[in-house]
Structures are given as structure tokens and as C-alpha cells.
């Protein structure tokens, strides 16, 4: 192995470094700007591309809890609270 700064110069190390870091930063900065602008762009596109049309979710529609369910949830919460209190 030959340790020398001349190796860096001969290999165009500084040029590759400067160009490389510049390109990486440019690419990610452009992505960052795009992401920042995206919510506003989607607001403008809302009339043509409504959010609901793209929600392909397969989840069942939310069902409001019945009175019985609320009592069960409250009982579970109380039990957990007592357990955490060491009861």
C-alpha cells in the first residue's frame, strides 16, 4: 500500500466527493420540497381527485359502541386501573 495525498489527487477524490455530496443533497432536497408541497397540491386537486375515491380500505365501517359495550369498556378500564394501583 502506498499512502499519499497524490493518490487522492490522481483518483479525482475531491471532485468525486464534491459532485457526489451535491447530487445526494440535491436529490433529497428536491424530495423534501416535493413532500412539503404535496398537501397543498392535493388540496388544489381535491375536486378532481377526491380522497374518498382512493380509500380502498377494506375495514368495516365504524360502529358506534352500544350502551352495553360502553359498560364493558368502563369495567375493563376500572380493573386495569386497580391492577396498576397494586390492588
Amino acid at each position: 500500500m502506498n499512502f499519499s495525498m497524490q493518490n487522492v489527487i490522481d483518483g479525482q477524490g475531491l471532485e468525486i466527493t464534491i459532485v457526489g455530496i451535491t447530487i445526494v443533497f440535491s436529490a433529497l432536497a428536491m424530495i423534501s420540497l416535493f413532500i412539503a408541497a404535496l398537501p397543498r397540491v392535493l388540496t388544489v386537486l381535491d375536486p378532481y381527485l377526491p380522497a374518498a375515491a382512493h380509500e380502498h380500505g377494506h375495514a368495516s365501517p365504524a360502529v358506534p359502541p352500544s350502551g352495553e359495550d360502553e359498560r364493558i369498556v368502563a369495567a375493563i378500564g376500572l380493573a386495569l386501573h386497580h391492577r396498576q394501583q397494586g390492588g
Partner: protein
Amino acid sequence: MELLWNFLQSTGFAQMTFGNAVMIVIGLVFVFLAITKDYEPLLLVPIGFGIIVGNVPYVATMSLGVYDDWTGPGGLQGSSVLSLVYFGVKYGLFPPLIFLGIGAMTDFSTMLSNPKLVLLGAAAQVGVFLTLLGALFLGFTPMQAASIGIIGGADGPTAIFLSSQLAPELLGAIAISAYSYMALVPVIQPPIMKLLTTPEERRIRMKPPRVVSKRERIIFPIAGFIICTMVAPGALTLLGMLFFGNLLKESGVTERLANTARNALIDTVTILLGFAVGASTQAKTFLQAESLLIFGLGALSFAVATAGGLLFAKLMNLFLQEKINPLVGAAGVSAVPDSARVVQMVGQQADPHNMLLMHAMAPNVAGVIGSAVAAGVLWSVLVQ
């Protein structure tokens, strides 16, 4: 009697060299560490066992090793099974397929909710280029130096992809170095994080990330791919597969494809990739002084990448009203999700109620993109 003598001469015992024995022991050590210490077992078990397989000696006329391929006198019929498996490494097929799986399991929503953290993923890539300079200084060729530098991207498939294209003779040492240091992220990063930040900075709390809509998560992989590859076309292969996998996941209409990509496909390719990399790591290329230099440079690249992300976060804080916890910058080292977990751990040492994990995931996944762009740039520049 002569037949028996010839057979005995063809056994591994008769062919064994000191280098073969050392490499087999190294393979055994990797398997041991993976199983008993849980050091990146999904990679080190295949790599370690591959090293053992690739270093059992055999008679030269038998076509058994990874390098006994179709370019030999026997053509395709004379090529070994291991060489056919190694095809995926040699011609850069396996790493993009792994990126497909990574994209199908990555959630970019933390990055989408706080886009300025993307720049921390870019800043961490300084480790790649400063290590490249160090490798050049030590006498490596530019292609070798680039392959060594990409270790700082902390991305195994990217390191294997680039070194298979630019410096295949160093592939084994680079792959082992990259995966070893990825496993050592919890050891390497915390001292640097504490050295470069004050206790007050480590206690900075960040605003909870906003909710990201499904449309944003669908549009991002398409737009992100176009933006990155227009800037750096050399990253086409890796980023194309990464963002394609992510689109499979986020579109909501290709769930079985996404499921296959992030489970069966990535597991299959990981097995073949690790095994082939290990089998290609042979004594005559691995047991050199260069390998020690590569391990040293690998450690340096991780340290510089950590420092780069941290210091850039502190620089950004000079201009921001809502401060970033600079620890989050260390997660720009794209060892997903280990470096984000390290940020959470170090942050909680300063403030036990400070939840930094989701914030750290933003530069963590941005670093995956950044390291792929860096690899694309290096490939484009050095192959021309």
C-alpha cells in the same frame, strides 16, 4: 492401490492450506456470533456457512466453486451450482430484489410528516465520500475506494451491489465489514452522539408528527422515484425496486404482491445472497492486509456518517424556530431500524419521557434513499 491413492489426494484434507483453515474458522466464528450473540443472524448465518462451504478445498479439475462458471472450458454445462447462485451477486440481481422487499415493508409516513428531516439522511452520506477519500489516500483504486466508501451508507444490499459492479475482488471483505458494523451500531453510535451533543440538546422535545393521508403515501413512491432518478440515473435499479415495493404496499390493491415481496421473496434472496457472498470470500482475497484496512475504514465511515447527521441537525437548528433534537441526525445512518432505536435509547437516557423513535425513523428511511443515490452517483461517475 493407485486409485485409492488418487482418491486420498483429492480429499479436502490433502488439499487443505493454512488459508483455507483460517477462513473455515472465520466462518465458524460468524455462525457462532450470529446464533449466540444475535449479531445480524439473518445475514451472518448464511454468510458464515457460505464461507465454510467456499473454503473447503477441492481438486482443480472438479467444477465446484463459485468461480467455476460458464466462462470456463466446460461452458454452461461445466459450470458449478454455486456459480449459478453467485450469478445473482455477480450481475447485481439480488440486491435490487432485496430492495423490493425493503420497499414493501417500509413506512415513509414519518418522513412525509416532517420533510425537513429528509436532509439529515442526506447529511449522513458524507460518511460515504469522506471514507472514499481515506481509501484513496491509503492507495486503493477509485473503484475500490468507492466500494469501501459505500459501507458508510450502512446499507448491506447497496454495498454488495456497488462492490459487485466496481470491485468484486473486495466483495467479501466489504460485505462482512458492512454487516458487522450494522450489527455494532448500538456500540459505535452512542459515544459519538454524547460527544457531539449537550445534555440540553438531547432533551429537546419535538412536535408529534402529523397524520399523513393515504393519497400522499401512494403518490410519494412514484414521485420520489422520478425525482431521484432524474437527478441520479445510476440509482435507477435500486430506487426503482425500492419505490416499486413501497407502491405495492401503499396502493392497497396489491397486498398479496407486497406480502410476497416482504416475506417469501426477500427471505429467499437473502438466503441466496448471503450464502453466495460467503462462498465467494476466499483466503487469497480475504486474508490480505487490505481486509484490515477495509475493516478500519468501515468503522470510520460509520463514525463519520453519525457525526455528519448530528452536526447537520445542529446546523439546521440555527435557522429553525421549532428545534430538531440533534440525536435524530444520527439516524440518518440507514441501518433501519437499529439507529433509530439507538436515538430513542440515548434520548431517553437524558429524558425518560422523550419519545424520539418515530422522529428518528424519518432520517432513517431517508438515509436508505440517500445511500442508494450515493451508490448510483459513484457507479455513474466511475463506470463512464
